[in-house]
């Protein structure tokens, strides 16, 4: 083999890689096939907690802390969580700390609530957005009413049966943040220890590794990381939807990237070997 060949392959136009990624995703999305998706302990913990909350008719707070930019990754997650909660009879209150995510969160909540025929005010409520992020989290712990005194349509939350007696985060049986930012970490740091409630986090893949230390300490009791986490959750609760479907192209492209990494390394070492061989031949 000539070194020119390895050099040529190592300097391949990156657009070929883009094209191959595109084709692999397209093919894997168009041709249906099943993949084993095993739910991990963190996914099971969140699903089980939501089921237990639902079975005792408890109240769940979902903080939709993401914006449209990360919706393809987090929408399937938040919908799966809401479906599971409604299916088991949990009452769901929604808030958002992401300004651009307000409409998205409300639309998703309304969509899933209508799917399960849930009544606004007694079975679900959406309190909208409040600016301040960390101060809003602390405010929800200290005095929920002074932070969210009205729902997204301007109704006093004391006139809504579901939120009438909510004074603090600890009045919720379970709090889940679905987030593309530092919300999970900030909920842990600023509120979990002080207001003593159970927190679950569903996050984008980018920030998933940052959350693992909080699982070890029990500060986060359930965790979904990226589309894979959402797919595991869907699979565990038996409601496969977009996340599970999205894992097909996801897995295909991951397999392709592993091949690229192996191929690149192989070429690198081969090129190094050929360079040394040529040098020795030149000396001889």
């Amino acid at each position, binding site marked *: 083999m000539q070194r020119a060949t390895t050099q040529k392959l190592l300097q391949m136009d990156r*657009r070929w890689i883009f094209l191959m990624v595109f084709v692999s995703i397209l093919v894997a999305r168009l041709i249906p096939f099943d993949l084993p998706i095993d739910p991990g302990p963190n996914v099971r913990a969140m699903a089980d907690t939501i089921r237990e909350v639902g079975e005792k008719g408890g109240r769940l707070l979902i903080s939709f802390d993401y914006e449209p930019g990360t919706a393809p990754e987090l929408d399937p997650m938040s919908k799966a969580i809401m479906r599971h909660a409604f299916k088991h009879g949990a009452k769901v209150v929604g808030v958002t700390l992401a300004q*651009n995510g*307000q409409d998205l969160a409300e639309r998703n909540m309304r969509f899933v609530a209508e799917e399960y025929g849930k009544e606004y005010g007694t079975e679900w409520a959406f309190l909208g957005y409040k600016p301040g992020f960390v101060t809003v989290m602390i405010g929800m712990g200290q005095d929920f009413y002074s932070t969210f005194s009205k729902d997204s349509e301007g109704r006093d939350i004391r006139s809504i049966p579901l939120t009438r007696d909510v004074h603090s985060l600890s009045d919720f049986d379970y709090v889940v943040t679905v987030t593309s930012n530092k919300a999970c970490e900030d909920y842990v740091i600023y509120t979990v*220890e002080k207001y003593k409630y159970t927190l679950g986090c569903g996050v984008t893949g980018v920030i998933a590794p940052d959350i693992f230390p909080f699982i070890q300490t029990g500060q986060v009791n359930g965790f979904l990381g990226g*589309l894979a986490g959402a797919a595991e959750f869907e699979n565990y609760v038996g409601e496969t939807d977009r996340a599970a479907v*999205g894992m097909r192209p*996801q897995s295909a492209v991951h397999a392709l990237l592993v091949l690229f990494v192996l191929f690149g390394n192989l070429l690198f070492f081969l090129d190094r070997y050929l360079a040394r061989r040529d040098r020795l031949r030149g000396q001889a």
Partner: protein
Amino acid sequence: MIAHEETSRTDYFVWGAVIALLVIVNVGLLATGRLPANWEGLGIMIAAGITIGMYSVLYKDNVLFKAVEHVFIGVSGGYMLFLQWHNVFWPEIIQKIFVPEPGDPHDFWRIIPLVLGILMVMRVSKKIGWISRYTFAWVMGVSAGLAIPKYMESIIIKQTRYTVQNPFVGETFDIAFSAVFLGLLVSYIVLEWLVFSTSRKSWLRWLLIVPLTIMTYYGTIVGMLSLSNVIVLVGVLSVLVYFFFSIEHKGPIAPVSKMGVYFLMISFGASFGYTIMARMSLFIGRLEFLLQDWLGVLSSH
């Protein structure tokens, strides 16, 4: 930032063909009734065009990409301004101070953050920009006051406490497994320090690294708590040693520091893998929008 690339006549032809194709496809979709001829349909067509325009940069920097990039920045800026007014400035400031709802008192305390906010905007002036420092000092003070005790409590104390867990918990097999793992690990550090670093037969270290890797893999698969506790403890200590620069990394410190590097590399690898998954999820989402919502050639399952 994208480097400037020469635009050839072929490129102009390609961009022209892409735009023409977009127009033809949209007209076809409207004519066949696949897209509704209303605002929703228009929204989908614009979103599809912008998506394709954004991804066209993967081929080459081009005028279509530049156009949609500028539209995106402009629309985002305008939208954020509207949201700030609608969600923050009007309901939280103006309404609460000057035009409260019937039954609510005027909340004049809010004038203080309003004034602090105005002071922050003074930064745009070279002459009186120094005034903004008062607001920044306030923000820094409040943030530090809020964060420091909470970080101490939730991050440092709690994390430290859970780093040092009993490594010998669970079934007898788990305890024995963890003990063997720890023994191999200590042997590796000692041999790396005394033998492998100076010996010509440094490949011998793989006789320890390979079983350690296999044991880690097995322990992770079966979810062995005892092994997890050992790995957390060793990982934290070795990474701390790696970042301890006050002593030279030689002698027994060198292999521990090296192990810290391995732990860091594994952590970066995990982050990279998750990041790829996140980026691909976004791309898959856009592709599904194009194939499902726009072209209607894909089912949802």
